[in-house]
């Protein structure tokens, strides 16, 4: 998995995306608070939605940059000419994105806990399951679409416009499941949502692996 290694190395050396996304997450929290007012009670009800809004918005920025290095440094041909199965590139990019997003989400979650005075310790295992399942779905489609839009004009515009509708079911499922988990319910009570997310993960990753070949052609 040379691709993962390369991308992670670049990211570790430059920390460019990570730093910017961290700052972006912090700003999002500020904006949410300013937009909704400081009333804790009211914010508490919208918290699962805000949390996922934060994940999705930072995901859009992070995922959209998946192939920036290749494009800007004219290495696109390098990817195309890489020997072996193209789907390996997809899996590598997906793994890199997944790791990046999980780190960002962990930071965002901690910030949410800090700003909204949440006690996350008790619900963390359940929350981690929901976030992991949702993030795979987000990153799987995001990586595929990022490759598609990388070579298109107005890509910054097209990427979210394509990704958001497709992710609608994932957003519904994760927000509902997060809400239940934050209220202290067991994972069993949201099993149907988790199954839906797992199904989405399987479908998206499978479609991504199978169609990535066609995206990277020529």
């Amino acid at each position, binding site marked *: 998995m040379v691709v993962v290694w390369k991308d992670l190395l670049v990211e570790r050396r430059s920390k460019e995306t990570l730093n910017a996304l961290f700052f972006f997450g912090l700003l999002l929290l500020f904006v949410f608070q300013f937009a909704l007012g400081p009333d804790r009670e009211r914010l508490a009800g919208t918290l699962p939605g805000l949390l996922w809004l934060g994940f999705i918005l930072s995901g859009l920025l992070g995922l959209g940059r998946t192939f920036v290095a290749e494009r800007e440094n004219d290495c696109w041909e390098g990817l195309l000419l890489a020997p072996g199965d193209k789907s390996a590139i997809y899996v590598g990019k997906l793994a890199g994105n997944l790791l990046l997003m999980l780190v960002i989400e962990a930071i965002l979650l901690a910030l949410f806990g800090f700003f909204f005075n949440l006690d996350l310790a008790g619900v963390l295992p359940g929350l981690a399951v929901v976030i992991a399942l949702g993030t795979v779905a987000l990153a799987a*489609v995001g990586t*595929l*679409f990022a490759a*598609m839009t990388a*070579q*298109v*004009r*107005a890509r910054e515009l*097209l990427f979210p*416009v*394509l990704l*958001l*509708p*497709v992710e*609608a*079911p*994932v957003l*519904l*499922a994760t927000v*509902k499941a997060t809400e239940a988990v934050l209220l202290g319910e067991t994972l069993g009570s949201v099993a*149907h*949502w988790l199954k*839906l997310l797992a*199904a*989405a993960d399987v*479908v*998206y990753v499978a*479609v991504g692996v199978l*169609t990535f070949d*066609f*995206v990277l*052609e*020529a």
Partner: protein
Amino acid sequence: MKRLLGFLTVLGLAAGLGMGFGVAPREATQGNVQRIMYLHVPSVWVAYLAFVVVLVASIVYLARRSEAADRLAHASAEVGVLFTGLTIATGSIWGKPTWGTWWTWDARLTSVSILFVMYLGYLLLRGMIDDRERGARFAAVLGIVAAFNIPLVHFSVLWWRTLHQPPTLMAPGPAPVPGIIKAALYVNFVAFTLLYSYFLTRRVRVLRLEAEAEA
């Protein structure tokens, strides 16, 4: 052949209108508003049919690289978006007197509107790629992703809306529909399917001529 299809479509639509307004009785509780169902339900059927055609044509395109399959997918997506829009519009018109609001996040309304934006994105992607061959490839991939997403959208939206409040207006299970209404509905199903195939063949033809003119 094309003329025959057009002729049949007009005939079918006329028959559908006749059945919907003339033969079918006035619904007791909803009144005449219910008659919009004869447009609404066939529209959504055509929309789903169109998106399934997009899926099949996309897979065929990626496997065979036939430009005809690409044009079929493109045309079908356009017609599908049109009929999804029709479904939402007629549903809104029906919803205002029946539910008292133009829009509500009802389960079916929500899933149809998600489909609408998803395939609008598909058309947007097509419009933004200048290279014909690359556009066809990317659109095919998106057509496959979107089609596989339909069941996920369906179930997520169903659970999203029904877990908190049980549906009061649209109770699950087949509603008892009298035979004559059913018959009127079936006639409209046939008419709309004809209309879909007519639009599709015309649009495919225009796309082919465009490609020839460019070549």
